[in-house]
């Protein structure tokens, strides 16, 4: 474990705090936006199944629509969301690193 007392020698405590909020908030904003999309999907699927069984039970390519969504299409959606996140998150971090510390 290293000595943390001096935080980073280049920053005062107040500046460090500002930096923390700045960095964290931007990361959280990105993560929350994507999580919101995903959570809406997760909440919506059972609700559609319950309240719109005729839509969920429609036959598509031999499957019911709900089976096709959950058993097949769901995975590519997770890939797209995570690929988008990784791209944006890396861009965001490059941006943060370029900014002056204070």
């Amino acid at each position, binding site marked *: *474990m*290293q000595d*943390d*007392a001096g*935080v*980073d020698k280049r920053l005062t*405590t107040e500046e*460090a*705090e500002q*930096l*923390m909020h700045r*960095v*964290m908030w931007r*990361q*959280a904003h990105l*993560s929350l936006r*994507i*999580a919101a999309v*995903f959570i809406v999907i*997760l*909440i919506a699927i*059972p*609700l559609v*199944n*319950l309240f719109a*069984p005729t839509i*969920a*039970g429609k*036959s598509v*390519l*031999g*499957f*019911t629509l*709900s*089976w096709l969504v*959950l*058993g*097949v299409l*769901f*995975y*590519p959606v*997770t*890939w797209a*969301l*995570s*690929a988008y*996140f*990784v791209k944006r*998150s*890396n861009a965001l*971090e*490059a941006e*943060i*690193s370029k900014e002056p*510390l204070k």
Partner: protein
Amino acid sequence: MTFIPFALVVLIIIATVALGIYGTRKAKTASDFFVAGRSVGVLMNASAISGEYLSAASFMGIAGLVMKNGYDALWYPVGYAAGYLFLLLFIAGPLRRFGAYTIPDFAQGRFDSPLFRKIAVIFVLCIGFFYTMPQMKAAGLTMGTILGWPYWAGIAVVGSVITFNVAIGGMKGITIVQAFQYWAKVFAISLPVFILMSVFGGYSQHMGTAFEYQKAVPRLDGGEVITVNGAEKAPLNAISLSAAEPTVLHFDKDHTYRIAKITPARKPEPGEDKITPESFARTTKANDSLNSDIASGKAFDIPSGATIRISPVVVTKDHVAVVKDGKIVTTGAKIEFEKGGPVTFMRAGARLRLPAAEGTAKSGPIVPNAPANGKWLNPFGPLAGKWGFPLLYTYSLIIALVCGTAGLPHILVRFYTNPDGRAAKRTTLWVMVMLGGFYLFTPMWGVLGRALMPQLYVTGAFDSAVIKLPTLLENQTLGQILSGVTSAGAFAAFMSTFSGLLVSMSGAFAHDIYGKILKPNASPESRLVAFKIAAVCVGAVSMLLGLMVETFDIATMVGWAFAIGAASYFPLLLLGSWWRGLTKYGAAVGMLIGGFLSLGTIVCSMLLDKKVLTWELPNLVRALMEQPAIWAVPLSILLMVVVSKMTAKSIPPDVTMKMIRLHAPEEMGISENYIEA
């Protein structure tokens, strides 16, 4: 011919051990031993994480659960995969930047509290043991299926081999082994299913048939002999027979059978007339003493060679038939065996050859215990609807799986093998692609199992579908080879997961309990010895636990491990990474209460299922006990927030620096590894 699967299983074991030895040559230092030197490439690491993550639950369990429960079981693979997205969004980056070996390291580093390390270690062990139980079941079941070994023997042999391998190797070399095993598993789950589908009909064809004949139930072949379970396998010793047509059961001459009770399969509603056992069951040849035994309502022996006809009964209220949706309601009988044995299942009056019934490939009696196509195919079927609160059950399951992924000790430790946080994120992305690619195949096995091997509904041996299905091929050699391929895949699955868990759990003992708590000055050599001793002990306990869970579904058990992780580690990691106000007291209280309450209710539900406990509980309570995440995760988070607010004075003074270290990109030159590699 049955030597083929065994040969392939031996082959994968040898490949695993050999790769392990090859990897060992490259690893020298303690850091190599615990986190593989922190410098593994993205694709390699993603394969390794996926390889470790795809356990017996993914390989055998999901297929079985989809076969048994249909649509609702699809949430399991979806949740396993979706959990990774949450891990990626909120936890992977910060955790890697913080740079500690284990979750207990994170716990101690974040709160400067050695006490907290001990609490965190408890959950490594709780979750770990819960996760090893289904792996052990898979080992016993696979060996039993391919070689006919008794359940315990498979567990003892396979468990010992893996334990020995881990004890001599540690985690070093495991990255390459796990990566290899991922590709072995993908191959083993995909190739055989394509061949099977080309012979027996494709995914959408079977789904389409189920859709078209929603009322149909799978049928057995006429006169099929199935060995029913006795009381030692409760609750799998019950068969619920058709409510639509009679079934005739013939009992073998050379065996003794005993029936514990005969009750209606459908749960009676208040006010309905009681249905007696003799209204369901009658002997076909006059046998007054057997008929009066049936009527007595007590347990009775079945004389050898007897034949009993089980008929559905009309449900009545005040002696008037109950009508629902314009149809008379009937119920079949549920027979609980005390002593089981081979039983011949026949369709009543089936001397004539009957054509295959609509919507099923076979013409025999309706298979016991199977839900009708419509119930199986559509949401809120037998799994979610079990306790009458399907929406609640579904959401609770989703929460457990999605949040629980972040709480698996053996998975998180792998993030530290990435060179930096950026690589950790790219790794997670690839893991999701690899997992999704694998999970697309698992429901296909369940669908094929339902269409082709309905006899598994009788004995509840759904988890063996993946191994047994290929043997249906007419070309026996090909069938045995493909069954060998899936057996080898199953081996890869439980070997990789069990090894990973053993490393985490033994690491917790050696690194956290021995190295940090018992003997802080221990030399690296003595820590390695502690690791090895711990591995052997943990392996032995896992095997013992595995012996007790033969009757539980593999995927369900893994779901429970997730639920415990979701209520303990997930809130700790989420709040610990994102909320500076979290204190050690808050985190500890939330983790302990959330985690132990989930653990407690899950263990109680298991005991209730096994009828060890006989509490009468309302269905809502049973649903919440079986799937605790929906209340336990919010409770844990709430406790963390409230207690942290109350103990705000104990926020570590350098918390700002810690948060910066968790979040600042590496390029800023602020984050440093908590333990320098």
